[in-house]
């Protein structure tokens, strides 16, 4: 057998689709890729000209012309026309004196032209050369070959024509792409949208050493203007802040309720490296103003710029802002605080990263997102955290405005009252005026009554709003529990089904008598567990979910009192260490009862065989935290299971009838009160368990 025989890869002609049309999702992205290539070629001025691209017009053309450094014949032959080459990878910085960070390093941007039109003519020249090189590529040739069934057509076999034309000035340099056979109709609003995307190419906050201006011309639509612009428009934002970093620290924002201001603090630098961030928040009025002044731009969330240029996942165009992909997951934050959360439609954000400073934030190959690594997840989390500062500001402003409105209304009521008494005085002192003044007094009284009515209605509306808000919140939190609960119910049903199936397959069998009896007993218990789970689920349908003012001390005492007989029957000494009064505003009493009942139930089981049986509850307030410790002298929970016991069906008291539901309920209830629960070292030393519940607390 002859050796050293080799085979090599060839590319079917359809490859051009894979790397062009199919890879680049939309035409605005395609055009954007080409503009980015101009940036990498050190262009300072790019003209994008649309000719006859409207409906029903013949010979549509799109031309992209730049004054960059251009290409030589060998550049075209050995680089531009070799798939996958990216000289930018080896030389990520564009030539002197611009030293731009290249933005199109994947080496596929050039195939974007196929997305736009059937034919492209590349006209290019380097400075000093006497002639312009013209290369013609006709994608329809590739397409025709593709449809040509029979012999194999190879991508690399298709020949593309080139020729030279004389240059008037040898000092000229640049590249011009003339795209003909334009595939889609471009309407005026398509072009405007392209311009609004182009406007976002360059970060408004990174000073570029050399300008990069894109001009767009579309004669038939009277468009002839610079598309890149400054972000002066964000001046109309309601509130804004900016964050920086230094070698070791990163600035982060939070809202200071006392001063009603955003507070910037430094924290150790995060895994993704230092970032700069500017965030602008627009309230209703500011949004209206923005829409009026910039009809072609939208307030559309946070964008990430790398080395001053927008990153690819944010470069994609979508006309309808509601359909825009929410790359950072800002609008996906489930139902969390739906009434006050900040959406992408209310903010403009600019996050500046650099290739050197944030090397782990990498564009994914499909250009739709970044590579999903820990650093990117941390970055997303950091950005969302900044939004919570805006959210707190929003809530603060809303409450402040509400208060101001109430005061204004009440003041108006008072003013009318004093107006009426003043006029009544005048009319009493001057009886001759009485006849003339009485209609005015009548009118003022009516107005006064109307204002009073308005104040009452305003109060009712506010109460109604809070009531609705609470109902929505309970429905939405139920949605999350529903996911857990259906899993729990299914697991139990499956266990029962497995046993029923076993009976069906193997019953009767005298040798298996013991197993059958065990399974029957288990099924009975599983049904009981199922009932417990369903009761818990139903507790959400009860009407007592409204938030109210609760004295926690009283609730703890009531719950402990309800266990009096259980404690005395089992020889358990209860120990309560709580302040006289702990007033919690707008919280849920039922949730606290559930938490305490389940914790005490567990402790009662745990101390069953203990020599000294104590169940102790202490409540302390530490600055802005409320801490409830429930301890017992029972058999304790091993350190490695401290986390595990909070999972549904996980129990250490199975032999005592524990179904593993109790601590799960505690955990979900505590979480819905925005707190956390954990098992800490027992306060009784080597024996027992201490469970600590921490909840946010405002004095």
């Amino acid at each position, binding site marked *: 057998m002859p050796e050293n025989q080799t085979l090599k890869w060839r590319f079917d002609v359809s490859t051009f689709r894979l790397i062009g049309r199919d890879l680049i999702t939309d035409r605005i992205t395609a055009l954007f890729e080409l503009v980015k290539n101009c940036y990498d070629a050190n262009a300072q001025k790019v003209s994008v000209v649309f000719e006859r691209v409207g409906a029903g017009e013949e010979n549509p053309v799109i031309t992209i012309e730049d004054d960059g450094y251009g290409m030589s014949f060998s550049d075209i032959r050995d680089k531009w026309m070799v798939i996958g080459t990216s000289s930018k990878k080896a030389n990520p910085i564009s030539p002197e004196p611009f030293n731009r960070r290249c933005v199109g390093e994947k080496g596929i941007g050039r195939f974007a032209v196929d997305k736009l039109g059937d034919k492209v003519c590349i006209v290019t020249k380097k400075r000093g050369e006497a002639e312009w090189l013209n290369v013609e590529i006709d994608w329809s040739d590739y397409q025709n070959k593709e449809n040509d069934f029979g012999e194999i057509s190879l991508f690399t076999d298709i020949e593309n024509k080139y020729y030279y034309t004389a240059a008037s000035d040898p000092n000229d340099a640049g590249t011009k792409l003339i795209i003909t056979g334009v595939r889609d109709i471009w309407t005026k609003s398509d072009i405007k949208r392209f311009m609004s995307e182009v406007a976002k190419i360059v970060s408004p906050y990174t000073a570029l050493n050399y300008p990069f201006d894109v001009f767009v011309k579309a004669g038939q639509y009277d468009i002839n203007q610079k598309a890149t612009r400054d972000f002066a428009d964000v001046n109309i934002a309601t509130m804004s802040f900016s964050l920086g970093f230094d070698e070791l620290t990163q600035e982060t924002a939070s809202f200071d309720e006392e001063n009603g201001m955003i507070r910037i603090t430094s924290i150790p630098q995060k895994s993704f490296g230092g970032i700069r961030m500017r965030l602008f928040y627009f309230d209703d009025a500011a949004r209206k103003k923005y829409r009026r002044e910039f009809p072609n731009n939208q307030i559309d969330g946070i964008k990430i710029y790398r080395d001053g240029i927008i990153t690819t996942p944010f470069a994609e165009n979508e006309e309808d802002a509601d359909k825009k992909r929410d790359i950072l997951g800002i609008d996906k934050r489930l139902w969390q605080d739906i009434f006050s959360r900040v959406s992408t439609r209310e903010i403009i954000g600019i996050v500046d990263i650099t290739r050197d400073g944030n090397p782990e934030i990498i564009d994914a190959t499909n250009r739709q997102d970044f590579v999903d690594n820990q650093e990117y997840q941390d970055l997303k989390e950091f950005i969302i955290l900044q939004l919570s500062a805006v959210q707190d500001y929003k809530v603060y402003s809303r409450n402040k405005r509400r208060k101001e409105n109430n005061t204004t209304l009440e003041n108006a009521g008072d003013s009318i009252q004093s107006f009426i008494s003043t006029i009544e005085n005048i009319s009493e002192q001057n009886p001759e005026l009485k006849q003339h003044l009485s209609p005015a007094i009548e009118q003022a009284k009516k107005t006064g009554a109307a204002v009073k009515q308005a104040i009452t209605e305003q109060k009712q509306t506010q109460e109604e709003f809070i009531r609705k808000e609470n109902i929505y919140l309970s429905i939405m939190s139920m949605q999350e529990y529903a996911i857990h609960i259906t899993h729990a119910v299914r697991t139990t049903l499956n266990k029962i089904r497995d046993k029923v199936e*076993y009976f069906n397959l193997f019953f009767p069998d005298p040798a298996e008598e013991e197993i059958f009896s065990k399974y029957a007993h288990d099924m009975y218990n599983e049904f009981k567990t199922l009932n417990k789970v369903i009761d818990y689920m139903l507790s959400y349908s009860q009407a007592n979910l409204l938030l109210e003012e609760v004295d926690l001390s009283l609730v703890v005492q009531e719950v402990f009192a309800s266990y009096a007989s259980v404690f005395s029957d089992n020889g358990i000494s209860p120990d309560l260490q709580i302040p006289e009064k702990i007033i919690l505003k707008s919280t849920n009493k039922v949730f606290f009862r559930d938490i305490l009942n389940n914790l005490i139930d567990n402790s009662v089981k745990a101390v069953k065989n203990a020599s000294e049986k104590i169940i102790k509850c202490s409540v302390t307030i530490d600055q802005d935290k409320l801490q409830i410790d429930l301890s017992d002298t029972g058999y304790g929970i091993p350190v490695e299971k401290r986390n595990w016991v909070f*999972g549904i069906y996980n129990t250490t008291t199975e032999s005592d009838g524990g179904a593993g539901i109790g601590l799960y309920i505690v955990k979900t209830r505590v979480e819905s009160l925005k707190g956390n629960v954990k098992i800490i070292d027992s306060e009784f030393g080597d024996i027992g368990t201490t469970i600590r519940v921490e909840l946010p607390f405002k004095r």
Partner: protein
Amino acid sequence: MRYKLVFIDDNMKDGTNDAFVRAIGKKLSDAELAVFMDPEEGLRFIMDNLNSQMIAFIDCKFDGFAKQGTDLLKEIRKQTSLLYIVMMSANNLKQIEGIDISAMINEDFIWFYDRNNGSVDGACALIQRITQYWSSRFDCVLERWLVRHPEDKDKIAFRQVSGESYTWGQILTELRLQTKIGRLFEQMINQFYIYQLNGKADE
């Protein structure tokens, strides 16, 4: 042919007396059963027994554990790409996070068993399909050969240019662990047979 069926599921409190496991055990008498509720323990068992024929049934969701089903899958795949794994879930596929689904479908030798709509017979049919694959896979064929011919176990099967040599027993381990040597050996054997078959065809 005996093989191990390993179940890792935090809800199988009865161990091998779990109705689902026990029913499978009664139907498939060649299977040796092992049940783990703790994903870490199950993982350790699998890692310690990679040189035996085994199918692992792994639950997707472990309540209260740091490790979840797909984490186990990833850790097993770091060691070997040959072990057959059946992922089980009481959630239907729609409820499983996209990222976990892609972690599953990106692996070889993986099946999914729907705990809600499946049956003991369905699970047994799946196991039998997997055991049929075993009869055609090189490592499995070699293992069975060595069970019948234990005298061959310590014979030298492969010697590298560097002088290092491997017995058939060692080769089996290398194959199971998918080490460089294991993969190289498998590749050479496949090439050898293709040459052989082609030679005959030429005649």
